[in-house]
């Protein structure tokens, strides 16, 4: 064997071993569509922002979400910033994506606010009633004149203005008292600054509260907040919701939180979260609570009131959040997000993809089967048409697959379902270079060239076509990569790697095999092609 041939074989063997080793050691990252999992694209919600947004808000969010996800115990999550306002979270192989989503999305902005004690509650409510009437007119305001106990006129709740029937006008006349107090009629006082609202009325109350006239009528420094409803709340508990009137200025926020743990309330066995503040927070909290003994302190998380116990005594560093009917898991998740810290701004999901693990397995199984059958067909075609030379091409094709997989492992690229399809298709297209070369060799042989000259000529003549056609495919792959998201990028990567690897195997590897053949049979004048 000549020296050049030896070098050629050494290079090929080295590359193939390297590729195989990389695949062996690192494995191939499977995309979420192949192994199951959840993909979330999150965006900062600037519309709900309180105050200024720190410039590195997205980075902070990535950090906080990573802490939270790590505590959830997801293997190999990927959390990264995309652009300035977007964060992409990928959770492979996750089981309970619902829970993960809640944990990730929670802003976890904890505030302690005093329940308001307005001098004249009735006057305040009357003012709000007037504001509603002023904003919507008596027609609309009476559209839903139900008290939590009174009868609900069928369909009356969302009846648009101007379509009133005579019947509902009669009802309205009977309820003139209620029609005059569209807001307060829906509230049943529970305690000072606390009301109960029927669950079906929450939407309309929200609508009233969002009217500019009503917002203007709420005294400065006060705000309405709904109570939190646990995920595990019973149907009975869901029937009505509490509405709190709070002082807007918190006496303390969660930034002083040092630790939070879920536990069962020793007396009642209900899940709750106990927390500890740091020294500074403890001092501030002590002063504030000491001043307000006897008043109710609302514990507000992300704008929802979790509980509002009466302050019995000065509270220093330790406190607790009762969760009324929540499950232990919910309590644990809450403790988790409190420990991880609050997000600097609320976030919302702009894109979500969840693939069940069994679907991913199916996809892999079907992908493999389709790939193997496809490859088998190509092998049949090549060997059937080019005989011995076809076998050489198939050997090159085998090395091609190993090299592409090695490349993927090396880059840490992710193999997605379209990527898998791209790989299979690229096998079909990878033979193109060999086909071009073989056709040229045949032509040279037909012209009566010697075998050696024909092979050299074949490779030389085919080169320009191979290079030009592959470069255009690379252009398409590059554009695809620029444009694409997750799965499509994966496809572009496999396509591009396929093009590069196929050029190497078709030109270099096949040539080496031909040279080897010629070196073993220096006198050969024919070739099975």
């Amino acid at each position: 064997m000549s020296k050049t041939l030896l070098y050629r074989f050494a290079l090929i063997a080295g590359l193939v071993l390297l590729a195989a080793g990389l695949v062996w050691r690192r494995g191939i990252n499977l995309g979420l569509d192949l192994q199951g999992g959840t993909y979330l694209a999150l965006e900062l919600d600037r519309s709900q922002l309180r105050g200024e947004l720190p410039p590195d808000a997205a980075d902070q969010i990535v950090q906080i979400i990573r802490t939270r996800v790590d505590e959830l115990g997801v293997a190999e999550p990927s959390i990264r910033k995309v652009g300035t306002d977007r964060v992409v979270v990928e959770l492979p192989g996750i089981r309970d994506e619902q829970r993960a989503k809640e944990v990730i999305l929670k802003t976890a902005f904890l505030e302690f606010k005093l329940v308001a004690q307005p001098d004249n509650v009735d006057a305040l409510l009357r003012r709000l009633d007037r504001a509603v009437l002023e904003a919507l007119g008596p027609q609309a305001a009476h559209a839903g004149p139900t008290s939590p106990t009174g009868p609900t006129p069928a369909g009356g709740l969302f009846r648009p203005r101007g379509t009133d029937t005579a019947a509902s006008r009669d009802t309205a006349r009977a309820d003139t008292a209620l029609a005059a107090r569209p807001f307060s009629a829906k509230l049943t006082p529970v305690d000072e600054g606390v009301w109960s609202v029927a669950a079906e009325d929450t939407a309309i109350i929200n609508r009233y509260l969002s009217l500019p006239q009503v917002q203007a009528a709420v005294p400065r420094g006060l705000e309405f907040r709904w109570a939190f409803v646990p995920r595990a709340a019973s149907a009975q508990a869901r029937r009505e919701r509490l509405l709190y009137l709070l002082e807007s200025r918190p006496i303390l926020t969660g930034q002083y939180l040092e630790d939070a743990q879920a536990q069962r309330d020793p007396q009642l066995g209900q899940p709750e979260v106990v927390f500890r503040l740091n020294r500074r927070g403890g001092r501030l909290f002590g002063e504030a609570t000491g001043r307000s003994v006897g008043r109710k302190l609302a514990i507000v998380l992300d704008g929802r009131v979790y509980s509002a116990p009466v302050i019995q005594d000065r509270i220093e560093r330790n406190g607790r959040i009762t969760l009324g009917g929540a499950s232990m898991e919910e309590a644990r998740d809450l403790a988790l997000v409190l420990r991880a810290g609050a997000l600097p701004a609320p976030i919302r999901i702009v894109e979500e993809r969840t693939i069940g693990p069994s679907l991913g397995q199916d996809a892999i199984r079907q992908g493999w089967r389709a790939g193997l059958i496809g490859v088998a067909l190509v092998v049949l075609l090549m060997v059937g048409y080019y005989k011995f030379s076809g076998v050489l091409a198939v050997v090159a094709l085998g090395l091609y697959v190993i090299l592409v997989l090695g490349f993927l492992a090396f880059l840490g690229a992710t193999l997605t379902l379209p990527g898998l399809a791209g790989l299979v298709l690229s096998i079909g297209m990878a033979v193109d270079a060999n086909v071009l070369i073989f056709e040229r060799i045949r032509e040279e042989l037909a012209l009566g060239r010697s075998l050696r000259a024909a092979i050299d000529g074949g490779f030389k003549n085919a080169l320009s076509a191979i290079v030009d056609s592959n470069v255009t495919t690379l252009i398409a792959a590059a554009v695809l990569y620029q444009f694409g998201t997750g799965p499509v990028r994966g496809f572009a990567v496999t396509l591009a790697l396929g093009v590069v690897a196929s050029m190497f195997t078709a030109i270099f590897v096949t040539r080496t095999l031909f040279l080897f053949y010629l070196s073993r049979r220096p006198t050969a004048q024919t070739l099975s092609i």
Partner: protein
Amino acid sequence: MRLFEHANYPFLQWRRRAYILSAVLILGGVAMMVRNAVQYGSWLNYGIDFTGGTTVVVRFDRPVAVEQIRAVAPDWEISHFGSDREILIRFGGFQQALGQDAAARVTEALRRRFPAGSFDIERVEAVGPKVGQELQRKALIALVMANLLTLVYLAIRFEWRFGVAAVAATVHDILITLGILATLRTTISTETVAAFLTIVGYSLNDTIVIFDRIRENLRQPGAGRHLAETLNRSVNETLSRTALTGGSALATLLSLMIFGGPVIREFAVVLTLGIVVGTFSSIFVATPILYEIEQRWPSPQLQGARVPAARTAGARR
């Protein structure tokens, strides 16, 4: 065995018929797009990747009919997905606008009719409207960019006439493939765009192999005087390669289509049709258009007598 060993088809002479066929296919596609626009409100069946919205795939433990699901929720868009045990549900709104998680909503609705444990949520995809619009814009940019870059590359490696002819053939393929997509009402997803760009790549690939042969044959003295003959010869000489490469690609695609599962299938269908169209266009669109351009705006170096001096400057550039 040799396919097309002494092939000598007068492809260029058949170009009128090919033009008519292409025109019929393109116009038919446009007609289907117009029909779609009138009947369904959009000229292509855009998936949630583009319009925004939510899809949920549910797998049942036994075959279910679409009607059974429709009885539970009449306002959902429901279809089978892959097998008769899997159902694809699509609703317009993005989940957050609806205030409830899509998976939870579907589960809750199905519980009314099917016992718990008899079905599983397999896949949930929700795309916000903003993301969808971004994607539409990006997909268009990608197609235009891919074509422009190729045009530039071919102008450098060959000559502008070749570049224009190749891109014209690609646009032809894109139009026909769009027509097919409109006719089949295939859901357009990001994967479809990927398939689309692959078709662009493959079709160009195919065209360039023929053009490369034309470039080579034109270097022979006097080739310019018998342009039609030279073009025909080039196509015929590359015919066996066209058949074999096309055959290999189709073999793998066919296998993906039959065995690849529901997610890959649409992708494979688009690619298969695209590759057939792309192969057709290399022979019957790209080459004839090159011929027509050459007739109208002849390149100086193909005027016959001046060939030896000018060939490296033009045809080879």
